[in-house]
């Protein structure tokens, strides 16, 4: 079945440093989504990328979708303590009928030292 892998598993940075997490899928994706989960919280949707090579920015966050639509990255510039949490990428897959499910990576846990 489809597999989504993320690296690194953990990242600890000093406040103000940059952070990047990488996501790779075993299959070509129609789109890729990114979610953030704060400690003790639930996943919250950040963004969806659809086009090959697409780059989207949300303030200090930059998301990229690879040309082959099998990989993606999230880059945070000048991290803040509010960025703490686990960042998940997720790719959709269909298995018969109109089923739609997301396969999530294991996530990258970001901690920020103030």
């Amino acid at each position, binding site marked *: 079945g489809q597999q989504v892998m993320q690296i690194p598993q953990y990242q600890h940075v000093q406040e103000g440093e940059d952070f990047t997490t990488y996501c790779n899928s075993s299959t070509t994706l129609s789109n890729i*989504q990114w979610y953030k989960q704060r400690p003790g919280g639930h996943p919250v949707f950040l963004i*969806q990328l659809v086009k090959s090579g697409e780059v989207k920015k949300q303030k200090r966050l930059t998301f990229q979708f690879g040309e082959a639509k099998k990989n993606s990255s999230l880059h945070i510039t000048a991290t803040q303590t509010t960025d703490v949490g686990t960042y998940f990428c997720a790719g959709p897959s269909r298995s018969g009928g109109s*089923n*739609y*499910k*997301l396969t*999530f990576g294991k*996530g990258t846990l970001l901690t920020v030292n103030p």
Partner: protein
Amino acid sequence: DAGVTQSPTHLIKTRGQHVTLRCSPISGHKSVSWYQQVLGQGPQFIFQYYEKEERGRGNFPDRFSARQFPNYSSELNVNALLLGDSALYLCASSFVNTGELFFGEGSRLTVL
């Protein structure tokens, strides 16, 4: 507007018991999905319901079942609980059968 609501938020069960978890989607959302999240892992797909019909099942045993009601709320049932069923159970709703998922805060199940 109210988000996805789940109940109960926390519960403790013993092995062999069964549990029912409930979810109310965002108003207007007709698709509800259930995910299991074990500590340190990403959410894993269990079920999807759309327009009250099961549209997909993940790699979970038959002890797991679910249904969706005419008002689009949903229940997840787990029978014969095992220690390994201890996890955060997340319900997510979406407006259409694709696109972003809106997660509830989850039901944290502990099996002793």
